Each structure stands twice: as C-alpha cells, then as structure tokens.
C-alpha cells in the first residue's frame, strides 16, 4: 500500500477523524510554530536580547 493510500485510509476516510485531526493538529501546530519561530528569532538576535545578558546582572546582585 502506498503512502498516499495509507494516509487516506488513516485520516481522510472518515470525516470525524479528518476534522478531529485538523483541530488536534492546529493545537500542536500552534505550539510548534510558536516555539519554532521563537527559536529562530533568538538565534537570529543572539546576544542582543535581555535573556542573553540577564545572567550578568542577576549573578552580580546575588554575590553582593
């Protein structure tokens, strides 16, 4: 059985499963997309954001 047939039989054959997987997928996609974009954004702006320089000042405060 080819991949497309498997895919069809697993997800698309029954509408309830189709719609259900769309909503479940939307949930997972939302989280994954957010973290993916954030990871890219943090990589792109490495060393510039507050979370990258925060440790300098927090440790300094704790040492006092």
């Amino acid at each position, binding site marked *: 059985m*080819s*991949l*497309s*047939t498997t*895919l*069809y039989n697993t*997800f*698309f054959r029954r509408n309830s499963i*189709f*719609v259900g*997987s*769309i*909503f479940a*997928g*939307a949930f997972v*996609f*939302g989280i994954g*997309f957010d973290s993916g974009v954030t990871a890219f954004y943090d990589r792109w702006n490495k060393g510039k954001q507050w979370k990258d320089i925060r440790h300098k000042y927090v440790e300094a405060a704790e040492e006092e």
Partner: protein
Amino acid sequence: MALNGLKKAVTLTPSVCTLPSGVPAAPLINLAVRAPADPHAHGHSGPRADVAPRWSGGVSRTSSGLVSKSYITLPSTTPFTARFMHTSVAVKSAPEVPDFSHYRANDNDSNRALSYFMVGSLGLISASVAKSTVTEFLKTMSASADVLALAKVEIDLSSIPEGKNVVIKWRGKPVFIRHRTQAEIDEARETKWQSLRDPESDEQRVKKPEWLIMLGVCTHLGCVPIGESGDYGGWFCPCHGSHYDISGRARKGPAPLNLEIPAYDFNDAEGKVIIG
C-alpha cells in the same frame, strides 16, 4: 473492389469532418438556406421561392457601374476523410488536439490524498490563526499592565511591632494587618468556631499565625471597623455595632460574614508581604 464501389454508391457523402485544429466543419452545409415556405407559419410565409434570394447574387451598383453577381455552392477544396453511415464519431485528422493528458492525474490515489491534505492544511492553519486571533482579542480585555502594577502592594513587616495594627490602602480599600501576640493566637484558635455565624477556623484564615491580614470593610454595610475594640478583643464597627474577634470573625451584631481575606503572599527573604 466491387463491394467497395457498391458501398460508395449507396453511402451518402459525409457532411462533417474535423479540422486539424479540432473544430468540426460542415463544408457542404449552406447555413443560409431556409425552407421555401413553412406550412405552419399561418400566413407569415418565408422568402418567396420563385424569386432568387439576395444571398444568391443580384445586381448592385458600384463605382464602375452595374455589376451582376450570382453565387453557387462550391465543393470543398480541402481533403476530408469520408465518414460512412455507421460511423458515429467524426474522424480526427490530427491526433489528440487539444491534448489534455498533461492535466490528467497519473495516480488517482495520490491525487486524492494530496487534495485532502491541502484542504486539511488549510483548515489546520486557519484554525490556528483563528485561535490566536481570538485569544489575542480576549487578552485586550484583561487588565492592562499599569493597572496590574498598581494592584499589588508590598509592606515591610519588620516595621510592625507585635500586638499592633497597621492599616494600608490597597485598591482604594483599607487592609488591616495585625501582628498577633501568642496569647491572641491561642485565643483565636481555642474559639469554638463551628457554632459561629460564619464558621471558619483560624487556620483557614491566616497563612502565618502571627500575621492576620484582611480587608477592613465591614461585611454588613461597608463601614471601616475600629481596631482593638469590641467585646471580643478584635474589631468593632461603629456604624451598626458589629463585633469581630481577633481572627476577624463576625461574633455579634448584624454582620453576616467574617472579614474578607485578600490574596497575599509572604516574601520571607525580605520580610515582606505582597497583597494582591
């Protein structure tokens, strides 16, 4: 051969052929011909059959004088394939023009799966975008950052000596903070709270036994009770005479409920309490 000749003799000449462009053509049909007279026309007869119709020619005046023209139907000069009587489809003079094979799916299964997948992806991303839109919109209804910043109050507990009341303002309301002595704690704990009007144990009302923190608003009609007074050593409301004990519970008078406890947290490291 003889059979073929016979066939030709009894077969009508074809009236339709297909051009290489795919357009069907009927070269021998004169589209302008009309019936000479329609017997069902009820008096409105067609063109007169005894007069030569205009399309067949006639006399016209041009710059060079009168010109007389007459037209006859000419046979086609292009070759066409003969269609016999039993042939139902016009013979194609060129293979598959126009050619749709490029548009046809090679594999129906994968084509179907792809179509469903695309529709599903559209739904998935739309649902995700709609969810974000709705949540972002609902977020605009929650309190803004400057309101939230004012909604918390920090109090340094080390400045409050034992056995003293402090009244502070929090969101426009007074908040009582009492540093209770051990005797007061014992008194609050030993009270038979099950029989009170609003039964609550002292353990439920405080997070640390020495610190009693509650809203200074009488639960009867909203006056501010006076500290260290009343019959039970707690608070006394001057408006209608409600008495609260050292745990802020309503003991006497019209007050229906105990004094309300706001949400608060202790910051042990700095000896502070954060109300809100």
